[in-house]
């Protein structure tokens, strides 16, 4: 999975409602569910220090 960027998205006062990420050149909305394969990969790359999730706008 080639994750080019990841940024939290805010809904109704929740600044970490989901993540908007560009994966394999496609913009995706990713839930904060460890069972979701995209979120699991984001967590893995964050842990490895190769990806940072930006704060919501």
């Amino acid at each position, binding site marked *: *999975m080639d994750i080019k960027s990841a940024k939290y998205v805010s809904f109704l006062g929740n600044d970490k409602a*989901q993540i908007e990420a560009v994966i394999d050149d496609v*913009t*995706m*909305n990713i*839930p904060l569910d460890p*069972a979701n394969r*995209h979120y699991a990969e984001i967590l893995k790359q964050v842990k490895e220090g190769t990806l940072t999730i930006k704060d919501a706008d």
Partner: protein
Amino acid sequence: MSKAAELANLIGNINAGGGGVNRNVLVNGATNVSQRSVSSTGLGASAGYFTADRWKFQVANTAGRFTATQDSSVPTGKGFANSIKLACTTADTSLANTEQFIFQQKLEGQNVQGFAKGTSDAKPFALSFYVKGNANATYVVALYDEDNGRYVGKTFSVTTDWTRVEITFPADTTGTLDDDNASSLELWIWLHCGPTYKGGTLPLTWASYSNANAAEGGDSFFDSTSRTFFITGVQLEVGQNPTEFEHEPIERTLTKCHRYFHRIGDAKDGNGYSLLIGGYQGDAGDDYTSYYSFPVEMRAIPTSTVSGTWNTIRTSNIKTAYVTVQGCTLYGSITGAGSWYLHGDSADDHVSFDGEL
């Protein structure tokens, strides 16, 4: 297979705890459902799901490229309408250590408890499928127990004619499979690999996974641009004897696939439109108007992806929020006071929900 032999196999499997209906634990074994695309080119750079539902292309570190197509070539007289055709478009004969190309399906632990793996009553795994290629080749097919790092495999032959492959992997009394929605058991067909995955001995009985043993004895699909690989009728069932493929109604296969992936907006009305949402807003801001209920509860909260440029009046493109395994809110970011709406109006306007393993 004669009717007598078929009956004997079925009875044998029933005695072993399998048989009956819904015996195939794999989904979309007949490759009838391809919600994402019926053809995808230039594959090989990135792993993922591209054509037939539930079938993943696990690729890594290879320069080889291929096209995957839902094809109409099928074994004669077996009731199939489709196969998956893989055609090599860029060969890769200079092998880096960790190159991979595995055709695979991952299965939830809660759907494979019938094998009683890791218990004294463990059942064998009966696998069958139909394959053909552009020339003779040998590949490795394996089961991988992701919960316990255990593995069993066997080689099989491909010829230029459709061939039925039947393999029975032995029961495994070691390593129980987690009873949950995560990947526990995986079917792997190795089509290409680097030296890391060869050099040892392919384990014909269950053993701890070892890279060097994983793909020993298999050929490379990427050895020539003339290489093709067709497969359909893939079935994995409890029992000691592979039985005839269990055909099922399309709505059942589609519903099974929807647990892992589906998308909305593809189907258009007589004017070419789909999925209109709208409302009235007194000022700019998000307007959470519509709840969309998924056709079936999904395996995990899905990733949602909006494709296409939708027809919009006083709003952004369609967006998703509050996504759960059961549904989500569809909304628009309104640009100013007044009525607003959006709808799909071209073939590429859709929203996909991906809860795959």
